[in-house]
């Protein structure tokens, strides 16, 4: 395109206006990427699921428990190669605002089910030998400045009373998506105290984790497990870990829909900003376009000039947006929202989407001024001196 030079030079003509527009676009692309990124974060638990794990919980809802005695019955089912269990604790550390997940787990089997939680051997040994030991995630430990050996007290909400623990290990994640914000402690510690204080609540677990070697058998095995406990006091619901995690995400579906709508609105705002700039630009250049038409340039050339400039600004804005997203904004978001969302994978798709929406905006913003510029008769265009 021979007119490329003219497009570049025109963009540099109103430096302040072009820079402001590019800045506006960059902010929008950044906001768009961050919102999309937060949506991805909601789903991060789903992404971390293993196809080899099934979760069995009470059919009524997650707040109901299952008898620990189900373990042996589940273990006998064909295709099941391992069973472990866990229970949600829901304690408060100093203040209710300091929320983090605390899970009572079976000390012997749980970590075999989750090879992605990496615990140093000596720390694992300490965990196994001390009843009130806790293993915490790296991010959680960093958040509160804990280190191995720290005594920590939690106040129970579901399990009344004060609970004293000692941190005996810090685990790290094998993958980027591994959740490093959890607090694991021994189920036998919980159960022992229940047995003493409220015996009816002893021997109860929140959910079973079942390992299967062949993920293609997941549906059949789930069906078999649930059939076992049909018409018992505690009917079960078994699903893949992915479906289990997804059911928590879907509870927030309204918020996710809201975020998606907002991410589209932000593009709408920036469309208005760029369209405004292009409308003003085209308006000022009416006499120039008339001169070019007098020289024999056809509407297609004028269209090219306006679209070219609009796209050029849009692309610069999009690129700047991606740069500021990657550099100063992302680390900020990670620190600010780190404990709301366990893991933060930034997908390339998000950045590509941000960039393409900038390009679409560049395209749309040029449409209206183009109509005007092409339709203005040369004679009228030459007469305007503004």
């Amino acid at each position, binding site marked *: 395109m*021979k*007119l490329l*030079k*003219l497009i570049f*030079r*025109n963009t*540099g*003509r109103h430096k302040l206006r072009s820079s402001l527009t590019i800045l506006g676009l960059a902010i929008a692309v950044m906001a768009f990427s961050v919102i999309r990124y937060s949506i991805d974060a909601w789903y991060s638990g789903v992404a971390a699921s293993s196809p080899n794990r099934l979760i069995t919980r009470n059919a009524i809802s997650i707040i109901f428990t299952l008898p620990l005695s189900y373990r042996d019955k589940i273990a006998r089912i064909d295709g099941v190669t391992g069973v472990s269990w866990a229970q949600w604790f829901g304690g408060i550390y100093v203040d209710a605002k300091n929320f983090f997940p605390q899970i009572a787990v079976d000390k012997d089997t749980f970590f075999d089910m989750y090879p992605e939680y990496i615990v140093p051997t000596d720390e694992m040994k300490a965990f196994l030998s001390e009843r009130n030991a806790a293993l915490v995630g790296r991010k959680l430990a960093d958040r509160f400045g804990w280190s191995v050996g720290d005594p920590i007290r939690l106040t129970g909400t579901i399990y009344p009373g004060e609970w004293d623990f000692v941190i005996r290990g810090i685990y790290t994640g094998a993958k980027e998506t591994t959740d490093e914000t959890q607090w694991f402690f021994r189920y036998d510690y919980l159960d022992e105290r229940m047995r003493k204080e409220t015996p009816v609540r002893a021997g109860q677990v929140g959910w079973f984790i079942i390992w299967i070697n062949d993920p293609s058998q997941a549906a059949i095995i789930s069906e078999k497990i649930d059939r076992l406990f049909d018409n018992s006091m505690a009917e079960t619901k078994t699903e893949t870990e992915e479906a289990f995690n997804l059911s928590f995400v879907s509870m927030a579906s309204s918020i996710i829909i809201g975020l998606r709508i907002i991410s589209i609105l932000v593009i709408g705002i920036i469309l208005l900003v760029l369209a405004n700039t292009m409308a003003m630009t085209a308006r000022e250049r009416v*006499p*120039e376009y008339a*001169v*070019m*038409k*007098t*020289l*024999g*340039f*056809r*509407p297609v050339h004028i269209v090219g000039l306006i679209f070219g400039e609009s796209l050029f600004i849009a692309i610069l804005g999009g690129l700047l947006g991606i740069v500021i997203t990657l550099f100063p904004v992302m680390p900020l978001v990670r620190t600010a929202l780190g404990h709301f969302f366990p893991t933060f994978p930034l997908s390339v798709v998000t950045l590509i989407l941000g960039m393409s929406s900038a390009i679409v905006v560049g395209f749309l913003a040029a449409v209206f001024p183009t109509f005007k510029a092409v339709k203005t*008769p*040369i*004679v009228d265009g*030459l007469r305007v*001196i503004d």
Partner: protein
Amino acid sequence: MAETLVKLEDVSKSYWRDSIEIPVLHHINLEILTGEFVALMGPSGSGKTTLLNLIAGIDRPSQGRVIFEHEDLSTLSEGDLARWRSRHIGFVFQFYNLMPVLTAFENVELPLLLTKLSRAERHKQVETALAIVGLADRMKHYPNQLSGGQEQRVAIARAIVTDPDLILADEPTGDLDKQSAEEIMDLLAQLNKDFGKTITMVTHDPRAAEHARVIHRLDKGELETA
């Protein structure tokens, strides 16, 4: 006997302003011969710029025909008219109308971008045109770095660079001081005499008109040939 380049047959033109018809030109008949240097004179509002615009094909008559080398312009579409202008017409404006973001060289090159000429050929033609107008040493300058007279010379170079059949000039000296105006008129006269260019010029400056070989006077939309 020179050939007829442009022929206006019974051309009238009116504008509409808020549903009121404003007649500008009345039944004009005019012939411009190849090689002529024509001046269109008249007071403001007499319709001389409108007449020039009709010849340039950037405006269409309300009635009558404009014929250029046996071709009726009213039969051409907007796109065809644009292509026709790029081949046959060079236009010089009162306020030069150079692209402020382009250098003198690039401004002159602009109409050549519509042709299929190679980059080297374009450069040769631009250099020739700028040499003719005497600005070979100002090629890299931007319009705001040039004086009014220089800007108008760049505009003339832009008008001749495609080697058009007809150069149209609308008050080419209207925005210039006396000396610059004189230089521009000398340049146009030289283009007519030495290069055989047909030129039609609108002006209300009698001194400028002296350079022309034929003078037509317009008054209230009627033509009287002197």
